[in-house]
């Protein structure tokens, strides 16, 4: 018996298994719930994957030089730093941030309208890197020529963020595996319950000379189709829920970026057939084991 047999079916064999009882809901509802959760786990995995890549790419190409100096020397030190950067290999562009830009950066933390010009803020120089950028060499040169300038290549805080995003992605995949395992267990239990409730069917089939595979096929097809129907419903509901999440552009932040983009919207559609394969294998195994015990 193969999955092809399941799709083609055998009308007469299907009739042998009594119409749906309680065990039908034991399969359909968990399959729908698990598929719903699987859509979110998949969305989480994809979103965190995108996040990790974005952080890694954008932060890896940028560095900042912080210049702490008395107000009357600040401009001179900024010029000195820019002069050094102009002759440093691996520096694509370098520019000093204007006071307004620094104010914009600080506004989310300190609020609007603060008299920033009266605060002893360091000046910032933004560097966009290219190939051959030597952070350590630049750091030593700045230390020697502009002692108040400190190079921050973002490695210190970039790495934990990328790692955190990667961990989240792994958690998403782990959740998907757990969902698959739980679903297999639930379908197995439902199949066992159905087989136990249909001992008479098995006894009669044995009596009339049915081979084990005949009874197994009848039960397996029923359970696989129920699981696929439940999973299809759960998947569609899950996709709808993800589609209704606020977009990242509107609200900003990490969680609002949870969702699918472009062709990745097709990925959740793999969940129902995948659930079908799980249900097929779980029911088939449970049915053969039950028949072996029945002898």
């Amino acid at each position, binding site marked *: 018996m193969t999955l092809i047999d399941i799709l083609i079916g055998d009308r*007469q*064999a299907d*009739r*042998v298994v*009594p*119409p749906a009882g309680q065990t039908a809901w034991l399969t359909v509802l968990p399959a729908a719930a698990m598929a719903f959760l699987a859509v979110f786990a998949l969305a989480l995995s994809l979103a965190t994957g995108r996040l990790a890549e974005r952080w890694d790419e954008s932060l890896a190409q940028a560095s900042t030089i912080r210049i702490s100096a008395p107000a009357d020397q600040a401009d001179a030190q900024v010029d000195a730093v820019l002069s050094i950067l102009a002759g440093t290999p691996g520096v694509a562009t370098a520019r000093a941030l204007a006071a307004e830009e620094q104010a914009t950066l600080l506004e989310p933390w300190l609020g609007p309208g603060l008299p920033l010009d009266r605060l002893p803020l360091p000046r910032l120089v933004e560097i966009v890197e290219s190939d051959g950028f030597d952070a350590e060499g630049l750091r030593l040169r700045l230390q020697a020529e502009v002692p108040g300038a400190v190079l921050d290549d973002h490695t210190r805080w970039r790495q934990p963020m990328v790692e955190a995003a990667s961990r989240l992605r792994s958690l998403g995949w782990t959740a998907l595996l757990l969902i698959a395992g739980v679903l297999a267990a639930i379908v197995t239990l439902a199949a066992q319950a159905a087989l136990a409730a249909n001992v*008479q*069917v098995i*006894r*009669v*089939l*044995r*009596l*009339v*000379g*049915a*081979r*084990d*595979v*005949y009874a197994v096929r009848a039960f397996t097809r029923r359970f696989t189709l129920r699981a696929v129907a439940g999973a299809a419903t759960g998947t569609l509901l899950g996709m709808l829920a993800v589609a209704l999440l606020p977009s990242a552009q509107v609200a900003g932040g990490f969680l609002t970026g949870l969702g699918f983009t472009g062709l990745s919207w097709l990925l959740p559609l793999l969940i129902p057939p995948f659930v079908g394969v799980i249900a097929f294998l779980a029911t088939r195994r449970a049915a053969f084991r039950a*028949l072996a015990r029945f*002898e």
Partner: protein
Amino acid sequence: MIELKGASYSYGRDALLHGLDLTLSPGSFHFLTGPSGAGKTTLLKLCYGELRPTEGVIELMGRDTRGLDRDGMARLRRRVGVVHQDCEFLDHLSLMENVALPLTVSGADTPERRDELTQLLAWVGLGHRAHAHPPELSGGERQRAALARAVITDPEVLIADEPTGNIDWEMSQRLLSLLAELNLMGKTVLVATHDLALIRASKPTVSARVLRLAGGSLQTAGAEL
């Protein structure tokens, strides 16, 4: 046809049947009698392969059952029709579908066989009940339906376990005449019953050998019947 050679059967440590030798030759008719709990049903199950002997050899249609797996046994079982006292059916299927079940599971449910099915139901007197469901049938109707199901595949052997246990005398006689008719058609018949009156009543219609199972051994019953 069916041959037991020193066949024994034990449930756990309790031996029920000891070293039985029995040959059911083609076209023979056997009654199996004995007290309740003597192991009549167990012996029948050994004869149609639902149970395997704990010792000894059983040959079904000339094949030693010891080397057969469950599928091989299922194929052999199609050549043996079985009627139980409680004659279980699939309650959600109609009588016609239930009787056709042996054809369905063997992939032999063709339109020609459907015609035979209609004739068979008429033969057992259930032509008018073809679309009824098992819970709607009386005890006698269930027994006749079970008999029809047992012979739909034209088996060589028919085994019946207390087929008249739940039905009245008139219906018992009718069932007996159907079994006798099958025997005349060349079927080997083995009927387990504790109803000695039924065995006596069969004398004018069939030439039956009567076996008595007691104390785990088989004896040929004689004049006391």
